[in-house]
């Protein structure tokens, strides 16, 4: 029983919380990547505009809660642009934003 408990505690001890700055960087990179995929698929006609709007809103919500700094502000502004592009059904703006999100995602890597 003692050995079992020790094994369990060892397992838990093996896990360490990631530094906050690293988590913020990952969150921004993750949403840049997701919105790049969303925008490019929408520009190709593979996604409906309501979904693009939902994805941009979800990104805004998560980035506002979990990220901070210049990169986060840029990602938030781009997410807002994508939402407006979806509302106006402007697929050429979607294609342009897809490329921008792609570049931003690469910067975060």
């Amino acid at each position: 029983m003692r050995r079992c408990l020790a094994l369990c505690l060892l397992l838990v001890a093996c896990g360490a919380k990631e530094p906050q700055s690293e988590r913020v960087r990952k969150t921004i990179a993750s949403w840049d990547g997701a919105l790049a995929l969303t925008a490019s698929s929408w520009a190709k006609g593979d996604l409906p505009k309501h979904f693009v709007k939902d994805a941009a809103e979800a990104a805004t919500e998560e980035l506002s809660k979990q990220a901070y700094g210049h990169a986060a502000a840029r990602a938030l502004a781009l997410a807002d642009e994508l939402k407006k592009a979806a509302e106006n059904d402007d697929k050429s703006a979607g294609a342009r934003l897809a490329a921008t999100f792609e570049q931003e995602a690469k910067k975060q890597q």
Partner: protein
Amino acid sequence: MKSSFLQIALGIITGIGGFLEVGSLATAAQAGASYRYGLVWAIVLGTVCLIFLIEMSGRLAAVSKHTIADAVRERFGFNFAVWPRGAEIIVNLLVLGAEIGGVCLGLKVLTGIEARWFAVPVALILWFALWVGTLDIIENSTSILGLLTIAFLVAALKMHPDWLPLARGSVFPVFPPRSESGNYWFTAVSILGATISPYMFYFYSSGAVEDGWDVKDLPANRVTAVIGMSFGALMSIAVLVSSAHVFNPRNIDISRYEQIALVLTPALHKWGLPIFGISLAVCCFGAGVEIALATAYSIAQTFGWNWGEDEKPAKRARFSLTYTVMIFLSIVPILLGVDPLKQTMFSMALTAVVLPLAILPFLLLLNDEGFVGTHRNGPIGNIVVAFTIFMAAIIAIVAIPLEIIGGGS
């Protein structure tokens, strides 16, 4: 009673359509996105344990005409049976809420209408289906509709998986950097919780008793457990592989359903999103039916009430009241705006916590001649159950600290 062939065929269809639900979909997608093939072993391990436990549930029902809950009460007494049941009710309530949330999200993906608007209509349809439907109609219709999930297999194959790393990931854990190990093990725990769900044993054994299985059905039971659950696991692995190819190279960590919904789009293009939405809605509806019924079955059997989905509701009033209360209580978090993905991941980890309580009786009941006569467990069956209990106990102790360290991402 169904012919053996039909029983096996339906078992396989149930395995494909019934295995994939909100928990397995979300956990497999998260695993693939974050660790590529590094957590396939958790699905494989969970499925092997599940196959043995499902086979045992069916064997107990066929030989003794007892369901699991029924046998536990008879063998160990009401006082022993009631505590695990209490814990399972709480977990099932959360999981049922997650499944109804999954249906709502599937409908949101298809229509763009906010998920919480669907909560009450979906709960009403679920309740109505249970109120008027028979077990066969409900099981077969959701399972056949669930065959749509084969789209995940098609998508995974279209993405040309790397077979050797996939085979390696199916057997060996891939240890991530220390800073990510909390999240890695929490995801592994959630996969095991999503795969070895106790409600499946109650549902399966109660269905077997309702269908009147006997000793002649044992070979069909074995084939159903092995092939049905293996096919189901294959779909789960297909989700993980698709997710690994779509999300991992783009560094997308899954934190919202709006991200998971993209999983089929690169492979299936404009069909990807509608197929994802329909698959999610249908699979979660099927799982919702199973959880609501399984909870009602286990409570009724523990308290010795009349039960049976094929009976008229008036003849089993307390049984019907139980699933009615469960369904409408479970949608409260959705209406309050709780994030469905976080509720799913939390409830899957909590499922892992109650696993030892649910599995321990298998070891005793399936070795008790009074229940299974000469059809007792062999050494391999006992080793697998003992290992599952050991693994489940470790998981139960570490799940909550891991949730604090690594969950909720």
